[in-house]
């Protein structure tokens, strides 16, 4: 089998072969069966992968070194530590301390520890002590810690009024 591969590392690691042996213990030639299922090593330009490493690829992080001008749309969570000039729409948005968003933040849950200049529209809103909110907050459930700055109206009208928000997850009973 090894004559067909350019891999000179010797026999396959035991882990790749073991399941095959369990599946077909009676067949004498387990080797070719195993090689048929084992995907050949794709050639790589670099020794170790950079992407798809240990970090989960689902969550999004806008670090403090990143500035985005434009729109962000996600069906999952976004953590913002940097700057965003534009609208953010996600299931859950966390605007960290020192972060700035100039635009509207839409979400099921929004936690604000940084600055938002614009609007927040979310079912559940948390304004922490370091929050700086300039603009209206449309919510259903809000919590405001002592020290938070708010300049704008709080409207408990999330989901009641017509808006251009398209809910990411359709709520039950509606």
């Amino acid at each position: 089998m090894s004559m067909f591969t350019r891999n000179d590392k010797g026999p396959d690691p035991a882990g790749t072969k073991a399941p095959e042996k369990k599946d077909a213990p009676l067949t004498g030639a387990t080797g070719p069966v195993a090689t048929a299922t084992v995907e050949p090593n794709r050639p790589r330009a670099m020794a170790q992968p950079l992407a798809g490493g240990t970090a989960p690829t689902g969550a999004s992080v806008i670090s403090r070194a990143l500035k985005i001008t434009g729109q962000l749309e996600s069906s999952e969570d976004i953590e913002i530590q940097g700057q965003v000039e534009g609208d953010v729409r996600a299931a859950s948005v966390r605007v960290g301390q020192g972060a700035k968003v100039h635009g509207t933040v839409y979400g099921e849950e929004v936690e604000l520890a940084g600055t938002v200049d614009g609007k927040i529209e979310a079912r559940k809103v948390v304004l922490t002590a370091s929050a700086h909110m300039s603009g209206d907050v449309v919510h259903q459930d809000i919590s405001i810690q002592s020290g938070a700055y708010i300049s704008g109206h709080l409207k408990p009208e999330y989901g009641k009024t017509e808006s251009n928000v398209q809910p990411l997850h359709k709520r039950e009973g509606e």
Partner: protein
Amino acid sequence: MYAQLRSDLDGDAENLPASQVGKALRVTGTLDTEGELYVHGTVTGRINALRLILGTHGSVEGDVVAREVHIEGRLSGRVFALNVIVESTASVTGRIFHNTVTVAKGAHVDGRMPWRPPSYFETLTQLPETRP
């Protein structure tokens, strides 16, 4: 920014936290960072970064200016980078302006790969408006 880019990658970049566009995230606009950027989602627009890592399921449509670009996903547009690595899972349409480029066997590359001296990338403005 490029004054900082000229410094070693191990220097400033390590102090800056990496940013990540998750696979469910779609960004339309400009992304500007002096650190690393991982893209597993979709970006339509321009990317300025020290280092861009485009993951297997990531997709970028637009121009990329970076010092180092590592492509495992889909990219459509121009790349301006000193070092470019195109992995076997990559699919690239457009031009890759580079000083050194590595393309793995199996990669789809449709376009030209013009070589440029290192000085070209140092003097490159953040927003390359020239269409060489």
